[in-house]
């Protein structure tokens, strides 16, 4: 089975957001990790290979540092890795990213393409579904559970207030919810880490992919930070009145309900 897993390198969940002099988010000095949802996708990709044989190719788009994310994928058990990297992609929106990744992945044999359902940085949750469209493939988003039998994939995905079971034939794109198939992303062995150093990690530019610079559809005009958390308030009064006031505040002030 030819398995492709899309892996994005993101800021550490603990990272602080700081802006540079141009008001853009400054990645300098920030610890970077593999997008946690993508780790679940990787785990599933590697399990598929362990079950059916084949090749797992990890694909990422990003700057040179994104190689680290791909090394992680290789240490976990991916066979090959491809990084799409080009300064012209710095301002890529989801459409541009999709064009580049689709072009790269179209050149790799793929029966199944896996990715996390969302990246924890921009949180846009678009690229892999767009990718499916661009490659003319069906997709199932936010998959909780799936199995492959012959050519047929049965997948359970999360919908509002429940789940939906789908059947679809390979090739297909699946985006992974955390905890997909009840598995935790594996912790690589030292042997895996040592082997990863020798595995193929290719980098391709837009020119290598036969693409020229692409004009994004969306442009970010500015960034800002949320207002600092307000000091909390203790709600005074008798329990009944306090409970009522709390619900009112949650509804009207916090707008969470």
């Amino acid at each position, binding site marked *: 089975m030819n398995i492709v897993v899309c892996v994005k390198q993101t800021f550490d969940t603990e990272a602080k957001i700081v802006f540079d002099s141009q008001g853009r988010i400054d990645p300098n000095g920030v610890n970077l990790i593999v997008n946690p949802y993508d780790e679940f996708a990787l785990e599933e990709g590697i399990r598929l290979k362990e079950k059916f044989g084949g090749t797992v190719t990890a694909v990422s788009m990003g700057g040179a540092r994104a190689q680290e994310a791909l090394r992680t994928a290789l*240490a976990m058990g991916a066979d090959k890795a491809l990084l799409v990297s080009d300064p012209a992609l710095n301002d890529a929106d989801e459409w541009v990213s999709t064009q580049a990744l689709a072009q790269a992945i179209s050149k790799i044999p793929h029966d199944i393409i896996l990715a996390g359902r969302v990246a924890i940085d921009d949180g846009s949750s678009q690229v892999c579904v767009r990718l499916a469209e661009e490659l003319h493939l069906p997709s199932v988003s936010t998959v909780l559970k799936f199995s492959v039998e012959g050519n047929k994939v049965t997948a359970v995905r999360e919908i509002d207030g429940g789940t939906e079971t789908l059947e679809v034939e390979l090739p297909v794109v699946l985006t992974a919810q955390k905890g997909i198939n009840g598995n935790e992303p594996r912790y690589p062995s030292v042997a895996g880490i040592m082997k990863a150093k020798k595995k193929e990690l290719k980098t391709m530019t837009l020119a290598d992919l036969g693409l020229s610079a692409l004009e994004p559809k969306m442009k970010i005009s500015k960034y800002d930070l949320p207002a600092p958390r307000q000091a909390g308030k203790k709600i005074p009064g008798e329990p009944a009145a306090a409970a009522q006031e709390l619900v009112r505040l949650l509804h009207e002030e916090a707008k969470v309900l």
Partner: protein
Amino acid sequence: MDEIKNVSLEMKDYIASSGAETLSWCMQCGLCTNLCPWRLVPGEVSENFNIRKMQRLGQLGLEGFEEENILFACVTCGMCQINCPRNVEIIDNVRSMRNTTVGAGFLPAHLRPIAGSLHANGNPWSGEREKRAAWQNGLDIPAFTEDTEYLLFVCCTSCYDTRSQKIAKSIVRLLKAAGVNFGVLTAEENCCGESIRKLGDEELFQKLAQGNIDLFKRNGVKKIITTSPHCLYAFKKDYPELGGEFEVMHYSEVLAQLVKEGKLAFPEELVRKVTFHDPCYLGRHNQVFDPPRELIQAIPGVEFVELDRSRNKSLCCAGGGGRIWAEVPMGERFGELRITGAVEKQADTLVTACPYCIIMLDDACAGLEKGDVLQVMEMSELLCKALDPK
């Protein structure tokens, strides 16, 4: 039986290159495993973690040592190391073996936010850097200047954990009462890095340590008082490797000296039966045994009893080596043994002198529901009580 695995010279070299210099000295006598506190509790970690075997796997370059329950189980208490007949630097070996995976970017899931926070905030507790010194508000603590004798370095835990802040505040009070010339640079400090180094993240340790060394040098720091034995260890044993040479003391050493000199006294009688838990990093690792005992016994009214395991034989609280962030089910926590031991001695107060030990012992005391017969206190808190009427 274990499955047959391949001996790998390459792996062995990789482990050695990560710093496990004395790994090959081990002759597999097994004393380490027998002295290991994990033998005293039941459960999965205890069954899987065998320090002798882990080193053997490393010597042969065999896979298997890197399983989370094995590689990250050691509490670095040092019990094995001080008794090793071959003087194997077992803890260095553990940390180097951890570095084989951690150095490549792989930390067990529960430790990632810890490392993430150390990177982003300079402390492991996800506390905002700007709030590191917030506990000092209203306490009138002098800033360190060129005329200050001692820098007081406060452990991250006591900066951010409200329970632990009481320790820092008590130490400040005692130092003031004794007229010590001290100041702080808290807001600009990083975590000392002791635990993250033991966890094998050498790169992160060096980043944190270098930040502190530069800060200390820039401000002309020569003498440091630490609130935590872990910071004491880092400054004394780790920082010199990076060019950070300072005169470092735990607060108990400073205070005990001042009591001897008559500069600090405890007027208030406390009728208590007190016992002392030697923190591994104060006792075994830094051989500071007498100062806390002298201090406790300087309080009028205190009856002091030793725990069965004390001084060099003290039993770890399980908070070292990064285990302060590890989950262990009830019934398998070393702290429970300490609480039970103290209750058996009919002590009403279990004193220790380390913020990590306090976390672990407090937790065990609450878990065993022994709070009505035994109070867990940091030594500075007890001493403060004896300073003040009421």
